[in-house]
């Protein structure tokens, strides 16, 4: 048992903290709000520092580090509310494709992620309200090529992405397809979302694509994507919670009312103590999921538990942090609101707490059926 980071991870922590400290100033973050909360210069700086390829293979320009090391970076991104789509690009979209990295199109997409020249995303949501239904998007072969037709919504980093993978049905068979975003068959429009990041709505009308996976392997890729999304969100959320709690503690130490610091009132201090406990629960759950994904084996339970704690801590800490700040906390000239909007974004991107508990509960029941 050893909860310490290794030497390399500490270097990544210091490097990213320094870089993000320089780039995530209030002035720059405000400016990023005009561009879909995306700072292209910071993203390129991260690429140049090797951070975008942190967990991608050396042969593609990456640093070949494990997932746990990537979570060190993700936590710092949360701590600074960095205006970059690292979570969907580096974790959810890229890592599940590593088993297929011998395909030329996957190699090209991941190489572009490492260098910053391109961005890979995954379009996992369709407009249909029924979340469990099979994808409505169709794949059709013509003249030895495959074309996709259908609609995708809430695509993270969708406006910046150069490549995207998604689900489609060829006849009755579901497959995973990769397509270039800049092509005639792809129309995308920006979708505004609560934390200011741009998502995208994709209308695919004969978008040329490559089949990556079909049959049973589809589930393996989707499962991996869910695990990475959940665990990576927990790491990012840990950083957001640290950030919110640091602001709230500082505010309550300085702000005087009734002739005393706010934090000297137990009703205030104890709310923040509860936030601290939630944050520490999230941290250990996140660490466990990261180690489990690093080591292989079934990460279903640990990533669900980490995601549960992310939803719990994000919701409770953001509201309590707002509460102890009073009006200051909601003022857009004060940094707290960005953390809170991200908290809400991540919580719902995970599908919400009850869907996570339903999945966890059904796993427990299945494992303990008489």
């Amino acid at each position, binding site marked *: *048992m050893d909860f310490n980071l290794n030497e390399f991870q500490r270097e990544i922590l210091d490097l990213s903290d320094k870089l993000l400290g320089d780039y995530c100033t209030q002035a720059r973050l405000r400016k990023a709000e005009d561009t879909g909360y995306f700072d292209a210069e910071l993203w390129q700086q991260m690429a140049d520092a090797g951070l975008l390829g942190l967990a991608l293979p050396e042969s593609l320009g990456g640093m070949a580090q494990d997932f746990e090391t990537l979570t060190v970076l993700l936590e710092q991104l949360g701590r600074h509310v960095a205006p970059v789509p690292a979570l969907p690009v580096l974790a959810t979209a890229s890592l599940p494709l590593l088993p297929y990295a011998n395909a030329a199109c996957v190699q090209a997409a991941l190489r572009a992620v490492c260098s910053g020249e391109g961005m890979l995303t995954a379009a996992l949501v369709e407009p249909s309200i029924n979340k469990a239904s099979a994808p409505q998007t169709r794949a059709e072969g013509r003249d030895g090529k495959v074309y996709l037709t259908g609609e995708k919504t809430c695509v993270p980093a969708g406006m910046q992405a150069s490549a995207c993978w998604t689900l489609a049905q060829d006849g009755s068979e579901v497959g995973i397809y990769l397509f270039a975003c800049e092509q005639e068959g792809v129309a995308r429009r920006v979708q505004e979302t609560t934390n200011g990041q741009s998502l995208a709505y994709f209308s695919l009308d004969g978008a040329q694509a490559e089949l990556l996976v079909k049959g049973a392997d589809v589930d393996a890729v989707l499962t991996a994507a869910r695990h990475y999304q959940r665990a990576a969100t927990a790491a990012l959320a840990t950083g957001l919670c640290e950030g919110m709690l640091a602001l709230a503690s500082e505010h309550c130490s300085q702000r005087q009312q009734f002739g005393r610091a706010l934090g000297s009132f137990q009703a205030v201090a104890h709310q923040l103590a509860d936030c601290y406990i939630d944050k520490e629960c999230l941290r250990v759950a996140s660490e466990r999921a990261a180690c489990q994904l690093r080591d292989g084996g079934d990460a279903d339970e640990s990533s669900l538990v980490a995601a549960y704690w992310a939803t719990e801590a994000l919701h409770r800490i953001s509201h309590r942090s707002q509460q102890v700040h009073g009006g200051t906390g909601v003022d857009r000239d004060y940094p707290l609101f960005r953390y809170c909007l991200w908290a809400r974004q991540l919580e719902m991107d995970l599908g919400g707490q009850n869907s996570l508990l339903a999945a966890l509960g059904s796993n427990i*029941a299945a494992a303990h059926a*008489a």
Partner: protein
Amino acid sequence: MNIELSAEQQAFSQKIRDYMSQHMMTDDFKAELACEEFSHGGGPIYWQKMRQLGADGWIRYSWPEELGGAGADPVEQYLLVDEAKRAGFPWPALSANSIGPVFAKHAQPEIRDKIVGEILGGEAYLAIGYSEPSAGSDLASLRTRAERDGDDWIINGQKIWTSCANFSQYIWLAARTDPDPAKRHKGLTIFLVPTNSVGYSCTLIHTMGVVTTTTYYQDVRIPDCYRVGEVNGGWPLITGQLNVERLSLVSYGHVAKLYDETLKLLCSDTVYSELLATPWVQRNLAVAKARLSALKLMCLKSAWKIEQGGSGMVEASATKVFGSELYVELGRLMAEILAPASNLRGAQDAVLNGLMEHWYRKGTVHTFGGGANELQRSIVATAGLGLPRGA
């Protein structure tokens, strides 16, 4: 980072689990513990088990080597207590972990070796006499007096919630030796009072969960050699209890027991299949599982921090609050699944041998015992978050 126990640590846990099930939690002992009078220990089989526990070296296990212990690290100490409590053994936390080693370090030579021998041999138990009818969380306001009379001390006063005093050989007593109440915690001294002293008496308090006691001290005369530590120097001995001890109050195995047992019951027979397939039942199980997973890691990480040389104070306080409130929450989540039968008592009807029913009755003490959660939250706020101290 490696959040798993090492192979040695896992083997250690397994060894304790086997030891507890094979040698300690025998059927006759379980039957004795089921009697309310002996539910904390004190019955004839309890003393047999304690002597065996001592002879097998487990009471001394986490004592420092210089005090005659085996010098187990805080993680091993945590695992030992965790497994014992998971098995349902009334672990002698006070003599084995918190008070025993402090006594051995600060006791006067005239009595030390004899009493340390009794403690380590499982022949004597110490009860803690801190709380008084008018001194609970504000311990420094306690009023029990000890006055010097030649080579002796005369003790007068009353203690309450002196758990286990009804079968203990000694009371680890905090008394006021400086009559000036303004001195507060600087006027307190620790004494070890033999429970066979003239003027000492003990009455039972029947709580809704367990039996505890009130202890009375009427002109109890004890020689100065039973004073522990300096005169008016008692406070550091009271507060210096290891933070790992606080962790043990809410150790994972202790809290998870109800979840483990409920799940075992649900998969023991197909009559429970429909229940197990019910969405809200699955949700209750999932909430319990997600929160217990965090408790397990919080406990281990806190013990690891202490092993690494940290004080672990904030971690232990945070874990104590979380674990004790989870204990209460868990009692509800699991009981709901089998309600209304979850409230049944008696050998014929009780679910899980009564575990489910008495969890609620016994569990409420966890949030205020071992340092009220309000005090723990204040520690987290000031030491963990740097907030200013309250008024």
